[in-house]
């Protein structure tokens, strides 16, 4: 029994594995039969030929017999698939050119799709690398009426929420900083996070080595540090005995207590150094509320939703607000204060979501255009084989069987293209770095993983099936017998499917072109904006003057003054500025201000302008003009009367109709004492701070660095000539003053401004690429339908010419087809473009779907491409020699 089972199994396996042997055996067996039958007929006196024919007649249809024998092998479905694939490959090789076009089309479309999908997946979809990361939320305060829709969180709020909020399992504060690790030559700049001890508990991270912070570390206030895995490898050689050693941060010794796991990655700030935050009693005071100097991340309680947390925090806020002094309460309420709770992942990706989804839609459209192309190419190819199809139908092959064969063929092509596409996608992901994508969260994780391969498999299956079914539907729905006689089953009529495909391609291509055009117009509008300062030839960098060695403000100021003097003496350097922040540097330091003698009206929010501490050379270096008053001078020193410069926006708001110069104001939302007043000495032109799409509504305020305290400064140097040479001289000059101080984050202001347009520029470029591919594929489609039109009307055209029709008649005959296909496409495409432009509205600037120039340019490009596409077929049509063409059939 077992042996027989085994034999049966072997039989099946043998039939499956050695398909060729099976077929060969069958061939040989039938040949043997026919030879003997022929011999017998010859013995009975028939001549060889006739004997052979008689033998065939007697045996019957050899192909049908083979099919029947195969049907009896018991492994039919698999074997059919094998044979289908085999035959599909033979078909591919039979038309290598056409196959190559289809495969390359699939590869380009699916490759682009896979590349974009891998980005969408890694950035938007993949969960964060923390346990139950969907429960992580970010909380921030918002003061929309003060022009400050997003700030951070204050310490009292943190303490409150940890204690009282039941929807939050754990909450933490953190602040992004940067330090110099080590000293002297070995010193390096590192990104760091100062975190509450609860931080790692919120994220549920366990250390790779040592331990993480406990609340003991909070209380003791001893300098301890946790380091990231990358830093551990690069600076400590990955040694396990690093725990307990001392690391010098900005010159101060910290005990290394733990190393984070390799997978740890938090926000876009690639911090490698973590130090604990300490809060004193002062931080808990009511005045400390709304000093939103920290960011908050929290973990929702197991059953809590974001909405529930939002509601609870709002009521907690309201409760605290009741206890405020009335002045402060009014100020805060008028500013429209609220706390926003957002899912962490959604918040992290808030800026890239829309551009990515736009790109995703773009690539899907390209995919559909490509799929339509593949379907129509497959259709043409299958139609060329309609005689074969008809024969197969006639000998009894099932329609379903043929359809399956066609689907297999298109799927094999799609699969080959898909594999090629994955390679293309991988290669194109390497180009990501060319797009300044470092600002995009989680972009480092992008790669071709299983998710992308799975996506590709699904896409291949869909493209293959659709192409096969469309082709099959077109061939099989007609009476197959026609094909036997004409060799061209219902050639003229069945191109309706084809026309429909091409029209939709034209439509989709138009949508792509128009969207890309609108984005390009927006980008042009954005780059044409005058930011209010002159970014040309300004080199920027950051510098830390550590409080550990420059212990008081005066010492830091002295160092800075010496640095400015030395740098300005470097040949090629114009002026040098130092400031607490520079436009487009990514920092957003704001302060509420209260002008003296101006009562803020009920319901009117206190302004929270950008507040920048600047050195005397700031306005010259950045080319910001003063419309009134004077810049800061040497006399504005520590101890001298406090001075400030406001921009025109701020001046107009508080002192409309009169000059702002001479007026006085307090920093902060509460009036202070008289000697805390700042006197306005000048009015500057407004500048764009960090977003070209808007000048800041709240305005800007400048105070001299000499009258404030700082440790971290941005420096800007106006230079002439070669940036690299000038910059290395500047660097040398500064390190000559203090070898431990190395400028970092070196860039040019022009680059910073340009980089701020990343989320406009990159989608625009990529979408333009998609539009070009889409246009090309669409044109290919138009070419295909016109060439086919010509092919099927060859005779008709010849007859028309023969009976005296003019070339012009022929052109109009072909033109009618063109207009029908392209015109339908354009109408549908224009409608689609209008509909879709609403989806990209938030990415547009100074333009819209009504932009006639973009519309005209898009239409022009499309029509031109479609005209070029029909040039060859039309040329061939009017060059027909009737005498030759009519004799052909």
């Amino acid at each position, binding site marked *: 029994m077992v042996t027989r089972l085994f034999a049966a199994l072997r*039989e099946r396996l043998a039939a499956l594995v050695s398909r060729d042997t099976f077929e060969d055996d069958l061939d040989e067996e039938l040949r*043997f*039969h026919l030879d003997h039958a022929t011999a017998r007929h010859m013995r009975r006196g028939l001549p060889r030929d006739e004997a052979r024919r008689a033998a065939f007649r007697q*045996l019957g249809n050899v192909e049908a017999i083979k099919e029947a024998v195969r049907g*009896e092998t018991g492994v039919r479905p698999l074997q059919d698939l094998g044979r289908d694939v085999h035959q599909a490959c033979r078909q591919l090789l039979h038309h290598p050119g056409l196959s190559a076009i289809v495969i390359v089309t699939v590869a380009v479309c699916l490759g682009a799709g896979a590349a974009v999908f891998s980005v969408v997946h890694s950035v938007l979809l993949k969960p964060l690398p923390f346990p139950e990361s969907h429960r992580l939320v970010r909380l921030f305060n918002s003061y929309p009426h003060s022009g400050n829709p997003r700030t951070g969180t204050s310490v009292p709020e943190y303490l409150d929420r940890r204690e009282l909020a039941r929807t939050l399992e754990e909450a933490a504060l953190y602040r992004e900083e940067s330090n110099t690790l080590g000293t002297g030559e070995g010193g390096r700049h590192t990104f760091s996070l100062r975190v509450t001890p609860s931080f790692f508990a919120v994220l549920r991270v366990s250390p790779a080595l040592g331990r993480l912070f406990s609340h003991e570390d909070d209380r003791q206030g001893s300098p301890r540090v946790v380091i990231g895995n990358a830093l551990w490898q690069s600076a400590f050689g990955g040694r396990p005995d690093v725990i307990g050693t001392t690391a010098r941060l900005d010159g101060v010794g910290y005990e290394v207590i733990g190393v984070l796991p390799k997978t740890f990655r938090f926000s876009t700030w690639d911090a490698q150094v973590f130090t604990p935050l300490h809060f004193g009693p002062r931080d808990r005071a009511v005045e400390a509320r709304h000093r939103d100097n920290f960011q908050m991340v929290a973990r929702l309680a197991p059953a809590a939703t974001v909405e529930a947390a939002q509601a609870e925090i709002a009521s907690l806020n309201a409760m605290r607000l009741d206890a405020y002094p009335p002045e402060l309460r009014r100020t805060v309420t008028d500013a429209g204060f609220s706390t926003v709770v957002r899912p962490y992942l959604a918040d992290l990706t808030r800026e890239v979501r829309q551009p990515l989804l736009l790109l995703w839609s773009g690539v899907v459209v390209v995919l559909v255009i490509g799929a339509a192309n593949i379907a129509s190419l497959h259709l043409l190819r299958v139609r060329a084989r309609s005689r074969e199809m008809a024969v197969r139908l006639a000998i009894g092959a099932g329609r379903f069987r043929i359809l399956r064969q066609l689907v297999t063929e298109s799927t094999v092509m799609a699969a080959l293209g898909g594999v090629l596409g994955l390679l293309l996608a991988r290669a194109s992901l390497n180009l990501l770095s060319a797009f300044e994508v470092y600002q995009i969260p989680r972009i480092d994780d992008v790669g071709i993983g299983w998710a992308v391969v799975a996506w590709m498999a699904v896409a291949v299956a869909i493209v293959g099936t659709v192409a096969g079914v469309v082709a099959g539907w077109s061939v099989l729905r007609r009476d197959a017998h026609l094909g036997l006689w004409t060799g061209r089953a219902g050639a003229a009529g069945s191109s309706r499917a084809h026309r429909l495909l091409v029209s939709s391609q034209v439509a989709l291509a138009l949508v792509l072109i128009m969207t890309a055009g609108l984005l390009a117009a927006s980008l042009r509008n954005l780059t044409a904006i005058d930011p209010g300062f002159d970014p040309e030839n300004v080199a920027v960098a950051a510098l830390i003057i550590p409080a550990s060695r420059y212990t008081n403000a005066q010492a830091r100021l002295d160092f800075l003054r010496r640095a400015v003097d030395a740098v300005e003496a470097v040949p090629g350097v114009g002026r040098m500025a130092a400031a607490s922040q520079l436009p487009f540097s990514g920092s957003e330091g704001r302060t509420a201000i209260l002008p003296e003698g101006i009562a803020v009206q009920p319901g009117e929010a206190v302004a929270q302008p950008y507040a920048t501490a600047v050195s005397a050379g700031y306005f010259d270096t950045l080319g910001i003009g003063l419309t009134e008053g004077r810049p800061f001078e040497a006399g504005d020193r520590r101890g001298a009367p406090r001075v400030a410069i406001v921009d025109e926006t701020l001046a107009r708001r508080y002192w409309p109709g009169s000059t702002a110069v001479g007026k006085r104001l307090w920093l902060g939302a509460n009036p202070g004492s008289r000697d805390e007043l700042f006197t306005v000495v000048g009015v500057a032109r407004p500048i764009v701070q960090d977003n070209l799409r808007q000048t800041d509504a709240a305005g800007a305020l400048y105070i001299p660095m000499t009258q404030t305290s700082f440790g971290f400064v941005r420096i800007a140097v106006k230079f002439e000539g070669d940036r690299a040479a000038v910059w290395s001289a500047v660097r040398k000059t500064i390190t000559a003053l203090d070898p431990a101080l190395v400028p970092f984050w070196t860039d040019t202001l022009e680059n910073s401004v340009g980089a701020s347009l990343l989320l406009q520029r990159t989608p625009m470029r990529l979408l333009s690429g998609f539009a070009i591919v889409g246009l090309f594929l669409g044109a290919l489609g138009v070419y295909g339908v016109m060439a086919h039109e010509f092919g099927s009307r060859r005779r008709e055209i010849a007859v028309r010419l023969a009976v005296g029709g003019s070339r012009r008649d022929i052109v109009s005959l072909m033109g009618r087809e063109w207009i029908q296909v392209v015109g339908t496409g354009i109408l549908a495409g224009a409608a689609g473009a209008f509909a879709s432009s609403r989806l990209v509205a938030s990415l547009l600037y100074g333009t819209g779907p009504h932009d006639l120039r973009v519309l005209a340019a898009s239409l022009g490009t499309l029509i031109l491409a479609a005209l070029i596409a029909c040039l060859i077929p039309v040329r061939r049509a009017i060059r027909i020699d009737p005498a030759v063409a009519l004799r052909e059939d």
Partner: protein
Amino acid sequence: MTDSDTRSAVLLGTLDLLVLKLLELGPMHGWGLAEQLESMSDGVFCVNQGSLYPALQRLKRRGLVRARWRMTDNARRARYYELTRKGATQLEHERTTWSRTSGAVNRVLAFNRREG
């Protein structure tokens, strides 16, 4: 197929039985079986030669026959089929069924004749 007008096609389902019977006499190749079927049936019914091969494959799959490549008398390779033990049992079984069926059919036919 013009012959089928004058000669009845082999009764549905009986081809397998006939093939098994022929193989009981010894191993034989497809062509040989076709020839034998034609001559042995005395031209009474026509075996569609084309349906012989699917039938052989079917029997093979059911384990009733087994196939082997061997040399013929005039030194040509041919696929010989032979009865397996299971095939022999099956043949006995079908032979019984057949005689019972044909006996019944004959009786019915005889009954009809008497009636007429």
